[in-house]
């Protein structure tokens, strides 16, 4: 049977922070194994969608299902085992006083998994050798920190990974390494990605579809091929695409 499994189904999602509505009426499906990007300018509500899925922004209405199971409004253990998130800032997402080992072991301990090998296995999956296991974050570079953050997200063997601008806080050379890592991990582990970014080349490298957001709404969902031929239906998507092309030509003349 070739029927696609839906990894993530969002229906009519509206998220508010107090009085202000950050996201309004967003609907989106992500099939298992697919990689979809949410793009838009800052303040368009794309990160808020991720926060609502994980339960970090609990004030939402609508429906969110992960592999067919409806989501509650708070983070929970069942979610943790199927869906994890990689944060934007590798400097802020690691506890300054905890070693890499402590960070990774804790995830296992919370879920009652007694498997010391899994820590070193996960570390080697993200391209860090055993030397890094007992280091503190201040002994790591930005790229290494982000690898640790990815290892933390992967150690519970989730099937859906939410990526919140995973490379935007890194140097350009390191960005490429992390993007390659994410691409390889997806192929190796059969992961589903929902990526938030404002960087269209990253979308072209990592995703099959993209949803363009503006002012808290999705204005268009397009295949990634549209990034090459510019075949966007919505004028805002076209201007975003044109903007990104202009940046590219300025960057390498």
């Amino acid at each position, binding site marked *: 049977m070739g029927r696609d499994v839906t990894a993530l189904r969002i229906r009519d999602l509206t998220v508010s922070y107090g009085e202000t509505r950050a996201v309004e009426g967003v609907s989106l499906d992500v099939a298992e194994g697919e990689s979809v990007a949410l793009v838009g300018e800052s303040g368009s509500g794309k990160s808020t969608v991720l926060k609502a899925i994980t*339960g*970090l922004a609990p004030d939402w209405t609508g429906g969110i299902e992960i592999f067919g199971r409806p989501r509650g409004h708070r983070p929970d253990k069942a979610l*943790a085992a199927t869906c994890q998130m990689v944060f934007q800032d590798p400097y802020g997402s690691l*506890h*300054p006083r905890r070693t890499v080992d402590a960070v990774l072991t804790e995830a296992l301990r919370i879920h009652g998994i007694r498997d010391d090998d899994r820590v070193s296995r996960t570390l080697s999956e993200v391209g860090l050798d055993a030397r890094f296991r*007992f*280091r503190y974050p201040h002994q790591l570079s930005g790229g290494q920190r982000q690898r640790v953050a990815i290892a*933390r997200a992967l150690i519970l063997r989730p099937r859906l990974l939410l990526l919140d601008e995973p490379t935007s806080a890194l140097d350009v050379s390191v960005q490429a390494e992390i993007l390659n890592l994410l691409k390889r991990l997806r192929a190796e582990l059969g992961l589903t990605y929902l990526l938030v970014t404002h960087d269209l080349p990253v979308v072209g490298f990592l995703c099959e579809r993209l949803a363009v957001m503006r002012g808290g709404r999705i204005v268009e969902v397009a295949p990634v091929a549209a990034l090459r031929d510019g075949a966007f239906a919505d004028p805002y998507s076209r201007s975003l695409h044109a903007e990104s092309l202009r940046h590219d030509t300025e960057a390498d003349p």
Partner: protein
Amino acid sequence: MSLAEWLTTDAPASRGQALAGRAHATARLLARNPLAMVGIVIVLGLVLVAAFAPWLAPESPVGQNLSRRLLPPSAEHWMGTDELGRDILSRVIWGTRITLMIVALVAVIAAPVGLIVGAVSGYFGGWADRLLMGLTDVFLSMPKLILALAFVAALGPGIENAVIAIAITTWPAYARIARAETLTIRNAEFVAATRLLGASHLRIIAVHILPLCTSSMIVRVTLDMAGIILTAAGLGFLGLGAQPPLPEWGAMISRGRAFVLDQWWVATMPGFAIILVSLGFCFLGDGLRDALDPKGRR
């Protein structure tokens, strides 16, 4: 591999080694600060003197001899004798035990209470925050010594009650600090990431937030030690702390007050001891602040 290499390696091979390396780095920062070393020497001296008081003190702290009352400092009695003919040096030495006990008990009671109240208040916010901070504000709004006086008056004089009273008056300041630190930490991405791993609030507070508050707490408690010693001495001075014949420094000053113009040493010697120990804790606290501040190092 030498011990120094083992401690400073950037690739520790075990949890224990990583921990030892961190302690080593902190100790080295501390050792670079001369005032902190003075503080350490004084505090260490206090601990050693308290531990070996029976061997160090030339005489019993309570043995009276009315034929040699109020003798000035001499080769025989280095700090002179008091109005009952007791050797003041011996009493100051035995007094270190009482001072150390007060300081340790207050720290053990007040710091954890303040830390937990502050962290819970800051982490959960909302009505828990309002309730707990309202309570701490009530305690903070009154001067420490007066509040301690009121508690001791209610509980009855005595050294245990003095400790309880001082602890009750010191925890609110720690709760405030812990809350302020927690507020800056609770929205950090590593807390969000840990919640997404399925961690309970209890685990996040105990494992992630409290350890980040403790270094500023240790600094603050060490700096407060001087104030605690002074408050304890103040209670002793007012007759509400340690009761005679216990050689408590504040009570000794109080007894010496009657002769302060003619027999100055009776009140001055325990006064010196209080100043020296307070200074020691202040220096140590200052040094610890520089060594433990995570922003101070990369």
